[in-house]
């Protein structure tokens, strides 16, 4: 569809009254000189409006800059992989994602596609310090978003690096599909800050991850990270089931084997698509034309997944990587972890 029907992304920035005076808010606004600022009382006045057209919004994202009095740190959800860490938390200082993957649970979770940025991370940092006082913390900071993709706008990763620098016991995971090597080149290398690149077969990336960098570029970024000795994780998650999936994942595994040195990869994560039934219902209503949304999933304990086929798929992927990486460095999500 012709892009001229839509306003360009971030043409409109809604700014919460209490966030307006924050230096972090002003810093972000300074990077968007063309944007039109609309003052609002509370981010939910815009973000939680009923009957929003998420599909149209995703073609013309608006930005909402907000301030949240409570820290945005949460215990990890059961559908997430914890990599063997008990104190597993995630932060949500940004809601929604510029990449707009078709299978993303965010489409079922939020009433809007617009991006909310809680501009002041200081309360979140303070909360992480409180958790660290109790013991080691494993923290996913790029959770309901892809933080690396919007780093030029937010500078949040840089803030996290500064925070993590002298926090022993804190392990951070930055999950991403971003292929910005320039960003990787300017951030320090910290042994407890892991970059986790999500890799999908080319066909999946083209069809379901249209706004994310293509596989080649993600692999190149992962290679570059490895060359800088940045702790590196490869995520084959979510694996999707579609006609011919085996061949596509075989090609992906081959590319990984050809292009990356396993000694430079800390570990890998394998998991199949799963989503809460509540979010799936929303996705089906909002994306009636999506094969992913319409797939007849198996429902168990409020989670829709490929059911018994999940184990078959993860085993297949692990088999493709056997001999390249040892099983003790492979982490799996499967039905049993629910």
């Amino acid at each position, binding site marked *: *569809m*012709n892009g*001229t*029907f*839509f*306003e360009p992304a971030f*043409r*409109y920035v*809604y700014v919460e009254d209490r966030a307006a005076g924050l230096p972090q808010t002003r810093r972000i606004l300074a990077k968007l000189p063309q944007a*039109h*600022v*609309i*003052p*609002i*009382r509370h981010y939910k*006045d*815009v973000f939680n*409006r*009923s*009957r*929003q*057209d998420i599909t*149209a*919004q995703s*073609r*013309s994202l*608006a930005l909402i800059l907000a301030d949240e009095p409570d820290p945005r740190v949460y215990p990890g959800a059961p559908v997430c992989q914890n990599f063997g860490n008990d104190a597993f938390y995630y932060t949500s200082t940004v809601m929604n994602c510029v990449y707009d993957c078709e299978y993303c649970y965010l489409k079922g979770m939020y009433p809007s596609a617009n991006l909310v940025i809680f501009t002041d991370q200081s309360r979140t940092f303070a909360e992480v310090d409180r958790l660290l006082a109790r013991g080691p913390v494993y923290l996913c900071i790029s959770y309901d978003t892809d933080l690396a993709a919007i780093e030029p706008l937010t500078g949040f990763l840089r803030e996290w690096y500064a925070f993590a620098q002298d926090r022993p016991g804190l392990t951070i995971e930055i999950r991403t599909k971003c292929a910005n090597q320039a960003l990787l080149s300017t951030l320090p290398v910290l042994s407890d800050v892991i970059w986790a690149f999500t890799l999908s077969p080319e066909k999946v990336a083209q069809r379901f991850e249209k706004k994310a960098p293509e596989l080649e570029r993600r692999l190149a970024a992962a290679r570059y990270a490895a060359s800088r000795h940045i702790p590196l994780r490869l995520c084959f998650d979510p694996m999707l*089931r*579609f*006609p011919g999936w085996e061949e596509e994942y075989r090609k992906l595994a081959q590319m990984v084997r050809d292009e990356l040195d396993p000694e430079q990869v800390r570990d890998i994560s394998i998991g199949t698509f799963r989503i809460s039934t509540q979010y799936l219902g929303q996705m089906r209503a909002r994306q009636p*034309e*999506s*094969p992913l949304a*319409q*797939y*007849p999933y198996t429902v168990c304990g409020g989670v829709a997944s*490929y059911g018994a*086929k999940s184990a078959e798929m993860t085993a297949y992927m692990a088999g493709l990587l056997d001999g390249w990486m040892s099983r003790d460095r492979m982490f799996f999500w499967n039905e049993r972890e629910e």
Partner: protein
Amino acid sequence: MIAVFTALYPEAEPLLLELRRRGIQMKRLPSGSLTAWRSKDDRYMLAVTGSGEIAAAIATAQLLTQFPADFAVNFGTAAGSDPAASCFRICKITEETTGRDFYPGMVWAAPFAERALVTVPHPAAAPAGTVSPSLPCLTDMEGAGFFQAAARFLSTDKIVLLKAVSDAGETAALTPDRLRAICAAVAAGVTDCLTGLSEAVDAYRAEEETIEEPALMAKAEADLNGSEAMRLRLHRILCWQALSGEDLRKLVRKLYEDGSLPAGSKKKGKEVLEQLERDIL
């Protein structure tokens, strides 16, 4: 369909003339409680609501109940300190009587600068000032009522408000001729915006992938002879096949050829479903 609402006839008339000038024939609806026109090709409707929030809300709800629309557009005049006959798109509406704010979606491109709007219950004696240094305010008597009614029927992203500045609060000088002249001055730009929205609707529809052969699917689902849950499961399998680019016709034909369908009983239907899942999922 793009449904356009104005408070007064002098605000609607220039739009009617502009649409006609562009070859879009607007036909008056049979007389009823609503003064409204509809284009022959069903792309546009134009209705006069009467002035005030309640009148605007009632007419908007009435028309949208009868005629489902893709977009609802409120066009009219408003008081403001901008030059007369300048036209703006509204990005924030405040209902003065309740203090509530409303936000029309700003997704669709429109060739107008933005203003906030305060909807008041009486003709404005003075413009409302500014919401922020970068966002001056206009004042009208319908916007909030129109928005609340339209939001019952449409996504807030499909609600657009366009306001032409009529005066800076000197309401006594606002004769019907003056309103007509102001709206005529902006009618071409507003009509460009309406046709843009109409083209967007066409493009949006054309882009939606449609599942082939709904009748074929419905027949197969009925012939499964199963429960509603089984029917839905088969429906999803067939949808997934069609949307994944598989040949649905071939798949369904095979089910009939190998005797799987029609399933003579619920038990047989269940077996067919399980076999299908084993084979293709």
